[in-house]
C-alpha cells in the first residue's frame, strides 16, 4: 500500500469520525462530502473509475447540495461546543460491528490479484473476450450494463423514475398544497 493510499484511507476514517462526532449538522454535512470524495478516490485506486465517478458526482456533489438545502429549512440553534459528547454504549456497539465486519477482510483477494475468483471466472472471461465484437463498445463495463444486462439497467431506470416521481409528487403536495 502506497503512502498516498494510506493518507486517503486516513482521510476517510477521519471524515467519517468527524461526520459522526460534529455537533453542528452543517459541519457534519461538509465532513460527509469530504468522506464521499475520498471514497471516490479510493474507488479509482481499486480500478473502478466508473463507480468512482458516480460516487464523486452523486455522493460528494448532489447529495451534499440536497442535504444543505434540507437543513437550511430546519432550525439550527447556535451550538456552544464543536463535538458531540460520545455515547460510550453506542460507540461500543459500533466498534463491535466494525470488528465483526473486519474479520471478513482476510477472506478477500488482494487488489488486482490475477487468481481472484472474479478475474478468472468464466463469465468475466466471456465478457472480456466477446464484448467488443458483439457490442462494438470498448468499455466492457458499459457493454455489460447497457447490452448484456440491458434489461436490468432498464429496471434501474424505472426505479429511478418511480422513486423520483413519487418523491416529487409528495414534496410538491407538501410545498404547494
Amino acid at each position, binding site marked *: 500500500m502506497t503512502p498516498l493510499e494510506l493518507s486517503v484511507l486516513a482521510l476517510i476514517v477521519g471524515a467519517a469520525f468527524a461526520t459522526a462526532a460534529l455537533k453542528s449538522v452543517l459541519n457534519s454535512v461538509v465532513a460527509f462530502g469530504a468522506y464521499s470524495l475520498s471514497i471516490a478516490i479510493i474507488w479509482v485506486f481499486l480500478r473502478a*473509475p*466508473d463507480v*468512482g*465517478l*458516480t460516487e464523486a*458526482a*452523486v455522493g460528494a*456533489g*448532489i447529495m451534499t*447540495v*440536497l442535504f444543505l*438545502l*434540507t437543513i*437550511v*429549512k430546519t432550525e439550527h440553534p447556535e451550538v456552544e461546543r464543536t463535538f458531540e459528547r460520545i455515547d460510550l454504549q453506542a460507540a461500543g456497539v459500533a466498534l463491535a460491528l466494525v470488528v465483526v465486519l473486519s474479520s471478513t477482510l482476510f477472506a478477500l483477494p488482494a487488489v488486482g490479484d490475477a487468481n481472484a475468483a472474479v478475474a478468472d471466472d468464466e463469465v468475466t472471461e466471456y465478457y472480456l473476450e466477446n464484448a467488443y465484437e*458483439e*457490442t*462494438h*463498445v*470498448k*468499455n466492457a*463495463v*458499459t*457493454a455489460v*450494463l*447497457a*447490452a448484456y444486462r*440491458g*434489461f436490468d*439497467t*432498464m429496471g434501474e*431506470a*424505472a426505479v*429511478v*423514475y418511480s422513486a*423520483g*416521481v413519487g*418523491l*416529487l409528487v409528495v*414534496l*410538491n403536495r407538501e*410545498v*404547494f398544497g
Partner: protein
Amino acid sequence: MSDSDRRVARGGPYVGSPIIMATVRVVMPFVFTFGLFVMFHGADSSGGGFQGGVIVGTVVLMLGIAFGIESTRDWIGPRLPVALVGVGVLAFLFTGIGSVLLGAGFLEYAVYGDLGIPHASKYGIEFVELAIGVIVAGIVTGLFFAIAAGTTGGESA
C-alpha cells in the same frame, strides 16, 4: 457576522454575488459539455448515463445557486424536468420494444443495423445512455427545485 449576512446564512432572501454569477457563467458551458462527454464517452472509457446525467443536472443547480433558485425555476418551468424523466424512460423502453418488433431479442441493438444504421450496437448503447442521462438529469433538477422550494419562507408557489 452582520445581520444581513446572518439572514443569508439562514436561507434568507437571495442575494446575488457578482463573483459567483460570473464564475457560473464562464464554467457552465464547460460543465455541460463535460456531462455530455461523460454520457457519450461511457462507451469507450469510464462514464455513462448515470454519471453524465448528474453532471448535466449540476449545471441547473449551479444556475439556481448563482441566480436564485426561484427565478431559475420560473425560467425552466415546473413541468420540464418531469417531462424529461418520462421521455427518457419511454425512449429506453421503445428501444427495447423496437428491437423485438424487428424480430430480435429485447434490447438487441445489432438488429437496428438492418435499418441501415452503421455500428448499430454501439449507437444503440449510446442512445440508451443518453436516455438514462436525461432521466437522471431530470430527477436531479426536479428534486433540487422541490427540496429548495419553501426555503425562502414558504411564500413561493
